[in-house]
């Protein structure tokens, strides 16, 4: 504990605004970046679902057309 107290600036004066601003901006930017990355990944997943839905819809339409031709024949 004494060793830790020796290396940590406990009770040190607050950082000046220009220096503290970098850290505060960094912390908030990290949060926003994480959020944006997550939303981008989810957007890609939603796009994939949309593509799969289109494939299934076109398959269903093809099958319906084939069934109709079978009935007509």
């Amino acid at each position, binding site marked *: *504990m004494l060793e*830790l*107290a020796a*290396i*940590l*600036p*406990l009770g040190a004066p*607050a*950082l000046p*605004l220009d220096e*503290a*601003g970098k*850290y*505060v901006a*960094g*912390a*908030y930017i*990290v*949060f926003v970046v*994480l*959020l944006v990355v*997550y939303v981008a990944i*989810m957007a890609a*997943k*939603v796009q*994939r*679902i949309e*593509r*799969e*839905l289109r*494939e*299934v819809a076109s*398959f*269903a339409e093809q*099958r319906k057309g084939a069934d109709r031709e079978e009935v007509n024949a």
Partner: protein
Amino acid sequence: MYGKGLRPLSIATVAMLALSLSLVFFYAPLDADQGFVQKIFYLHVPLAIVALIGFVIGGIFAIAHLRTDNRKWDAYSYVAIHISVIFGVAVLITGGIWAKASWGHWWVWDEPTLVSFLIVFLLYATYYPFRYAIEDRDRQARYASVFAITAGAFVPLNFMAVRMAESLVHPRTFATANGGLPGEMMFTFLCSLAAMALLWTTLVKFELTAKSASGQVKRLRRALDAPVSGGSSRIAPEVS
């Protein structure tokens, strides 16, 4: 079904985040001890609280899954843990930045609060390989639920152990009856906490909606005997 109410929830989340950010930078007074750096508190602490509560909620959903054998609860548990792990990453990074600004070190290994959060985070990081290692979906869901319950029970125990331990440098948030915060700071903190809780809920709902849509497409494909295209996940739980 899961998408119901997502739009108003998203709007409420954005409004609350905007309000809390405005309060942090234009209303809350500067801390007498730390100065401007203390603004990280309004991001770091709510993220940590919501992440830890999210892990416990994941455990509660897992109990519901084991009790009812309804796969819906397994998906809820999975998504709750997933979003909480992402919040956990943000907690560790913002905490490191705050530590560097306040103490001059990115990380202090002797500090129980920091190390205990890292242990909880790493515990939940093993949830994914543990889950994905099991091929059979029923067994996967059951084992993942047992994991979520055990780890979820560990979170409050760990929290209490840290509270009882001697703190070296990390402050004990709300160690006193009035929280140790002046009124303006407390109000700003509570708004930030509400914003983070709303964000967590919105992201959970968003992911559940996407999983539900994916599950419905798979069901439709199976019903039509349609060929399966590549790229679909075999490991994440389905919601129908």
